[in-house]
């Protein structure tokens, strides 16, 4: 075994020059395709000085519509969501099935990632402190979108003969449209979504993550892994292989256990750093509010800040993309509404809590010491903001970032798999082929330059918002009816609590 591993290393080392050529040819091949797809998906309409990508507008209008249609479920449903997660309504007879808490934790692990640490820094750099305000607003509205898509994910899922479940937008698009007499259209939308989530899973759910993990590792070790991307990639691919093909669940379970603690650890230290910059807090908060409406120094002014904030929020909490609905479909409940309720906590945790905290770390640091980050942007900027107060923090931060990347990869490997099985059936051999492709892309992410490839995957993930949200509009009346029915039964006492009565 050891000899085999050494032999593989030697072969790969000798191939390194070839990789460099490979990298170039991939880039030249994909760049024109990427820019064409990107230009199409992120088609921007200029409003005053700002550039508004249509797809962002599409998502925002959807989120506002669902917020009104569901009667502000994102506000009044909050308390009920907490009760569900606590298990107040869990029938002890069903113990051992997936709990609401578990579905929530898994979905949150999939969304909490680099975006919460690095993406916010990008938002603040480009959109100014005011972008934070719009980021929070987008998180708040996104709660309604999540509610609708996760309810539908459970309602229209497939139960496989072996007792496992498959669900998500491809299923509700197909079945939902077919229920309304548009069978052909539903089939087309389902297939379109499945292809999009499959390719997206290889890009932002995979290569982007492994690439960022490698970059951080290399930064924190002072360039120790320069040119060794293939080695880091190979190790990461091997670990992912062990989890998703080798069935070594313990690795995944350990990560899934560590990630929530890491998120808590991150928030606690972030709050400490904010408090250490205590005198800057009022100014930082006032910058967020004034920036939101004046957009001082931002291209496109307040509108520019708004666009950036909304765009980053969607990147981070995935509301409207439909991915979380795949994870939530696994819960065996008779009440699809309960999963929707629980899922509205995800944008809250991801965007309103964690992203806001990151924004305040950066905001207070820049009030206390403008230019603290030098030229750094993204995750390096957040890292610099922490470093200003706690000099050793970049190391655990890089470690946390790697774990976030890993858990995101595991979650997305499943989302992509569900797209794949929707297209090619549930046969085991097909699933193994998909998983091998997935592992290969983990390694690829550390070797090639991401630019054009990431652009394609980015664009596709946003492109699947189009059929998804369209489906949500069509199916919203069904969700609304279920919601009214469910709340009536809660109020009449037909659905009762088992705990904390």
């Amino acid at each position, binding site marked *: 075994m050891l000899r085999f591993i050494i032999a593989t290393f030697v072969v790969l080392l000798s191939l390194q020059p070839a990789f460099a050529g490979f990298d170039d040819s991939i880039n030249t091949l994909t760049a024109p395709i990427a820019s064409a797809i990107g230009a199409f998906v992120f088609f921007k309409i200029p409003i005053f000085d700002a550039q508004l990508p249509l797809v962002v507008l599409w998502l925002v209008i959807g989120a506002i519509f669902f917020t009104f249609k569901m009667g502000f479920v994102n506000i009044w449903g909050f308390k009920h969501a907490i009760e569900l997660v606590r298990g107040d309504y869990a029938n002890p007879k069903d*113990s051992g099935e997936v709990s609401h808490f*578990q579905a929530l934790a898994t979905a949150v692990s999939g969304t909490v990632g680099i975006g919460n640490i690095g993406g916010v820094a990008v938002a603040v750099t480009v959109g100014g402190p005011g972008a934070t305000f719009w980021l929070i607003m987008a998180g708040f509205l996104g709660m309604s979108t999540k509610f609708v898509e996760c309810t539908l994910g459970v309602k229209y899922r497939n139960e496989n003969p072996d007792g*496992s479940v498959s669900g998500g937008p491809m299923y509700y698009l197909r079945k939902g449209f077919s229920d309304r007499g548009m069978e052909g259209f539903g089939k087309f939308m389902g297939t379109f979504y499945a292809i999009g989530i499959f390719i997206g899973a290889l890009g932002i759910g995979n290569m982007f993550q492994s690439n960022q993990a490698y970059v951080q590792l290399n930064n924190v070790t002072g360039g120790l892994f320069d040119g060794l991307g293939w080695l880091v990639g190979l190790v990461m691919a091997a670990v992912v292989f062990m989890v998703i093909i080798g069935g070594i669940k313990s690795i995944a379970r350990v990560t899934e256990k560590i990630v929530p603690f890491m998120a808590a650890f991150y928030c606690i230290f972030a709050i400490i750093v904010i408090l250490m910059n205590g005198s800057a807090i009022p100014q930082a908060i006032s910058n967020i509010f004034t920036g939101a409406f004046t957009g001082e120094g931002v291209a496109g002014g307040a509108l520019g800040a708004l666009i950036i904030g909304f765009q980053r929020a969607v990147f981070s909490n995935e509301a409207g993309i439909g991915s979380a609905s795949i994870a939530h479909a696994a819960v065996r409940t008779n009440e699809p509404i309960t999963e929707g309720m629980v899922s509205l906590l995800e944008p809250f945790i991801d965007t309103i809590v964690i992203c806001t905290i990151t924004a305040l770390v950066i905001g207070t640091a820049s009030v206390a010491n403008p230019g603290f980050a030098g030229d750094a942007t993204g995750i390096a900027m957040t890292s610099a903001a922490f470093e200003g107060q706690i000099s050793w923090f970049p190391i655990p931060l890089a470690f946390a970032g790697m774990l976030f990347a890993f858990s995101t990869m595991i979650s997305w490997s499943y989302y992509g798999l569900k797209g794949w099985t929707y297209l090619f059936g549930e046969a085991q051999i097909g699933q193994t082929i998909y998983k091998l492709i997935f592992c290969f892309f983990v390694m690829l992410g550390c070797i090639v330059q991401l630019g054009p490839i990431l652009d394609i995957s980015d664009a596709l993930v946003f492109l699947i918002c189009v059929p998804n949200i369209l489906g949500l509009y069509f199916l919203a009346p069904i969700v609304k009816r279920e919601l009214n029915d469910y709340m009536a039964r809660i109020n009449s006492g037909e659905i009762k609590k088992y705990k904390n009565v």
Partner: protein
Amino acid sequence: MVKYVVAVDGSDGSDRALQKAIDLAAAGKADLLLAHVIEWSAFSFHTPDELAERHKRREEELERARESVLSPSGKKVKVAGINYETIVLHGHPAETLAKIAKDENAENIFIGRKGQSKMGTLLFGSVAGSLIQISPVSVTVVP
């Protein structure tokens, strides 16, 4: 009719507890409820893959518990001519046993002791120990 809950898990300790319960039930004209708890927390973390397969796994776990734990124990009770029922649930072992006893209006819970080392108890706790702390009914710990 008086009802005794017996915690069974197929171990030697649980067999001794069962024997004790059979003896006392025969003498005092009681029915037995054989309870098996599969350790499980609703607040643990899983991958999406595991969530999708959870229902299937749960069915398998219940089936295994019925076949390899409850049904052999049941045979012993039947031979002794005592009425019995069985129950298998997922959950925290001590809390779930206490809840079963309360819901079923049982008079006593019988539980075996593993006799693990002090260090082991310190690290992992013991089901019998926790049950004594929280049980709403009397507990008989059989060594």
